């Protein structure tokens, strides 16, 4: 028994350094499986002249690739460049740079089928199918050789969108959400994708999107824990739904989700990408600007009109006292009146019941007496 154990110990100490060496050798070989490719493509300045006259850079920054998510997983170049099987490889066939990109981004699906398929129903895919070659494909947002986490730091998300949507980004970055994101990398404010979705970005101009939009705002603005951090009331959603605009929109959304409506949703008053804090002098809903905002839909509105909306406040003694006291009046008068009526009616019914029973008693007794006599 002992001898066997000792022998095995020896064997172990012999095998360990061997295994170590073997592992190191494999690791060395795997450390740069792409060394062969980079021998040519690692030379800065190398480019190919395409049919269109455009130059396609052939240089790949090996270091940037090693730091990328794929590089860290030590994927070989051929994991994506599936058509390259050896050296020398076939010459490149592409009319222009975009042609090359459009031809190749399909390989992403090999490893990421879920997100790839999600994009097939997106606005980008629809634009592409309609012939807009500039519509975003995987690599336009994520990059190709230098792919890193798309959401660290958080502002990277919206900066990515800004590459093509610069006009909207200009508005967004001045907004209360955008400023907080870009200046302090705030973890709570929405980036582009929080409202528009990530891979299956839908059409934000449809009636269905419009009707659904209060739910998008509500995702955060109904969250008590989140809103209390910023001192924002979560009553905004319910007060909206209880009002004329919100009632229509909510019921449409549930009953006829594709019905177009002109009733205001959150962004009609607060703005879309340029939404400002409600106390910002530039806010569309700040008191000085509110009339102009109302007039977008009610052009004949007068100075008193904006106050007919209770500004998401639940009326109390200080804010909208008239509404508060009317409600109070009916909270007293309804139980009072109905209570009076009900007690009078019940008393009356009770008395009638008693009389009827007494009469029956009398009739029974009389009948019994008649029977007795017979």
């Amino acid at each position, binding site marked *: 028994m002992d001898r066997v154990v000792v022998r095995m110990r020896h064997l172990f100490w012999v095998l360990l350094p061997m295994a170590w060496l073997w592992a190191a050798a494999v690791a060395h070989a795997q450390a740069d499986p792409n060394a062969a490719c980079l021998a040519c493509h690692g030379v800065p300045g190398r480019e190919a002249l395409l049919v269109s006259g455009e130059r396609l850079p052939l240089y790949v920054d090996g270091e940037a690739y090693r730091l990328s998510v794929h590089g860290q997983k030590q994927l070989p170049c051929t994991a994506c460049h599936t058509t390259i099987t050896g050296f020398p490889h076939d010459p490149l066939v592409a009319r222009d740079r975009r042609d090359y990109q459009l031809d190749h981004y399909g390989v992403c699906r090999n490893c990421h089928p879920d997100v790839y398929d999600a994009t097939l129903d997106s606005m980008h895919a629809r634009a592409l199918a309609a012939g807009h070659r500039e519509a975003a494909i995987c690599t336009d947002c994520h990059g190709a050789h230098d792919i890193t986490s798309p959401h660290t730091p958080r502002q990277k998300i919206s900066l990515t969108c800004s590459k093509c*949507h610069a006009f909207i980004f200009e508005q967004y970055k001045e907004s209360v959400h955008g400023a907080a994101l870009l200046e302090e990398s705030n973890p709570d404010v929405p980036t582009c994708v929080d409202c528009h979705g990530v891979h299956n970005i839908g059409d934000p101009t449809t009636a269905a999107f419009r009707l659904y939009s209060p739910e998008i705002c509500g995702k955060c603005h109904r969250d008590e824990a989140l809103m209390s951090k910023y001192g924002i009331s979560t009553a905004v959603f319910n007060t909206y739904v209880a009002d004329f605009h919100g009632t229509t929109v909510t*019921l449409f959304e549930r009953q006829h989700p594709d019905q177009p409506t002109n009733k205001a949703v959150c962004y009609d008053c607060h703005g879309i990408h340029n939404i400002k804090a409600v106390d910002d002098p530039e806010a569309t809903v700040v008191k000085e600007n509110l009339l102009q905002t109302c007039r977008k839909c009610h052009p004949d509105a007068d100075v008193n009109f904006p106050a*007919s909306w209770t500004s998401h406040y639940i009326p109390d003694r200080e804010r909208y006292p008239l509404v508060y006291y009317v409600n109070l009046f009916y909270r007293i008068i*309804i139980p009072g009146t*109905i209570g009076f009526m009900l007690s009078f009616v019940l008393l009356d019914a009770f008395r009638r019941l008693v009389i009827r029973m007494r009469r029956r008693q009398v009739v029974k007794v009389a009948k019994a007496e008649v029977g007795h006599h017979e």
Partner: protein
Amino acid sequence: MSEQPRQEYVRFSLTDRIEHMLLLVSFTVLVITGLPQKYVPAAWAEFVIGLMGGIETVRIIHRVAAVVLILESIFHVITVSYKLFVRRVSPSMLPTLQDFVDFLDALRYNLGLAKRRPQYDRYNFEEKIEYWAVIWGTAVMIITGFMLWNPITTTKFLPGSWIPAAKAAHGGEALLAFLAIIVWHVYNVHIKTFNRSMFTGKLSREEMLHEHPKELERIESGRVRPDPPREVIRRRERVFLPIAGVFAVVSLLLVYFFVTYEETAIATVPTPVERAAVFVPATPTPLTEADMRLALSRGRAQLVPHAISAGRENCLACHGLGTIAPYTTIHANLRLGNETCLGCHRLAPGAAELPGNGATPSFSAEILPILQRRCVACHNRATPLDLTGYRAVMRGDGKGPIVIPGASAQSRLLTLGGLTAEAHPSRFTADEMALIGAWIDAGAPEN
């Protein structure tokens, strides 16, 4: 035998019964379409609204029923006035001290403290409570309903907070009326005894004896005031009918105004769709020397057609994002000063000063001539958009105002007829744009 008392007594005339039917139908429809609107976040309310074809349909049904109720109320005022002023019947519906005494007696009787129930005349206190509750409730509902139907008109005279207050009162009063009908009306004429007189118009002698013994006694003892002779009625009608006619016409006009006057509170204008330029690739900033040279060499950079002085030192004030003459979208991410703009956009030779600096342009002397030159060939009194005078310009078209005082960038007069409106047949020149813009930003005065 011929002296035997009649077995049936007329209680409600045909007009009374028709009125009751109108009230019954309109009230029921109003309750069914109204209460779910009051309780809308509740699942049952949503279900009921869904059954009736959705919220917009429910609102329309509610408004139609409201008009029926209003018309019935006007009719009621006329029929009651006829009875009071022409036939001069006694105002038996007015509450009296006797009603209070009756109420106390009824209470005592119901508590078993009295042996005899109170003896009622034509209308007992239960019926009077019901009648006056309907009068009060209808008045509240019509007034608050008007305010909710015409909030813009209402807020021209009253503070804005009266609208949500009217909404609160409309809902509260509705619930009160509904519950009162369920408790008071249903018990008194359906459960206690099923009183058919509102449909047949008649009560039997037994019913009269039981419910209106005093009235029966008056009828049977001949102490009933007879209807005045026909000539007297005719004479009174000659005064009454014209007055009632005028009242009816005025009331109907008011109802017509009520229903049709305000358009935008209900229909509103179509939602202004903000269509931002979607695909706007970011350009490298700041522009490189090479970019500038390229732009200039290809002649792409437009020449500046006006002098740059007197309040126009900042190009972006007029040509930035969201201004009256915004720069093209390829510059969307530029946040630069004049030097950069002028790097590519050189001054046109002999560029003159833009008009409209300093003083507010005059509408009659400067703006109107531009409109006459560019617009009124198509936009005149015969068309929905009329640009022939100050009032017409300020009124705008079916989609709303075209001039928003103080906000030239949002005024459709400039955005639609402006430099960027490629589809529009006639366009303002840069000078005209600047003048009109200055006038709007100065508050669009009538000067």
